[in-house]
């Protein structure tokens, strides 16, 4: 424990000044612009992949440099990474269940192709 914590503290005490924050801030602003720009274009199924890829890069920059996980000790890194992995497990395993169920057994389930583009309000005069 002593060795571990000493190593973590030594690296944590490095001061990078504010230059690093300015650089990260600039990149975050540019990526925000990019995600709005690509969000307005239509890449079909790639939309969500592009948007999530940009969000993951932005989030990594915030966690590593604004939140100093880059300089943090191995224990704190492990804690945070494990929490992210468990969110991934939660979503993946739930999807494993959803995708292999008989569609009709899902509550209120409607096949994507069956959904009318816009259904008019019931009082829309028949």
């Amino acid at each position, binding site marked *: 424990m002593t060795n571990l*914590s000493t190593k973590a503290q030594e690296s944590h005490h490095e001061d990078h000044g504010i230059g690093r*924050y300015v650089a990260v801030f600039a990149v975050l602003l540019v990526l925000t612009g990019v995600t709005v720009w690509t969000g307005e274009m239509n890449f079909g199924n790639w939309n969500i992949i592009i948007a999530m890829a940009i969000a993951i890069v932005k989030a990594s920059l915030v966690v590593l440099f604004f939140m100093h996980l880059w300089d943090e000790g191995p224990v704190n890194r492990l804690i945070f990474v494990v929490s992210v992995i468990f969110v991934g497990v939660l979503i993946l395993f739930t999807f494993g269940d959803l995708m292999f169920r008989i569609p009709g057994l899902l509550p209120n389930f409607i096949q994507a192709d069956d959904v009318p583009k816009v259904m008019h309000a019931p009082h829309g005069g028949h």
Partner: protein
Amino acid sequence: MSSSEAAHSAHNPYLAHHFDTMEQQDHAARLGMWLFLATEVLLFGALFLGYTVYRWMYPQTYQECANLLSIPMGATNTVVLITSSFTAAWAYHSIKVNQIKKGLALLAITILFACAFLVIKYFEYKHKFDVGELPGKWYSYEGLQAPGANLFFAVYFLATGLHGLHVVIGMTVLSIIGYRTIKGRYHSGNYVGVELGVLYWHLVDLVWIFLFPLLYLI
């Protein structure tokens, strides 16, 4: 721990008696904060799961609902939060190097950005209440009547509402840090409290980085 080392660090009045050194105390504090942040990730993770499941069930409705949200307002709020994250990091750095006045000014700017975020969010919410883009049985927007629209707005209000609550808590934490800094508690010899409060603020930014594209863009 040798007695000379203990004596060396004993002059720091911020060192609690149950820790040997300031470094050990800071290490324990950071460990506790990261454990807390991990639980926050799991908390929001459950909401993201809800979003994903309903999106999978109603893909077209989700896209049509996302089109009802104002991208300019969402994008402005993204820039506001990213900027506030930057000023918070800068405030932490300033207090760490004993530039106390600069640190306080930057904390105040960060809190102002947080207020700006909430004001923009208020106008977004107000519009949705006015036109009836609301969760569950309260959904009454006639421009889009599709199955799943009320679920989209249930997720929207839960996710942005919980995030908004975090913004308010974060503002409170930053205010307390500012008050304690004025009182002379935080400076180059004792700054881990500032560091942890600012970590919480970055988490607020982190959650929004995912909420913005998921709700507004795709």
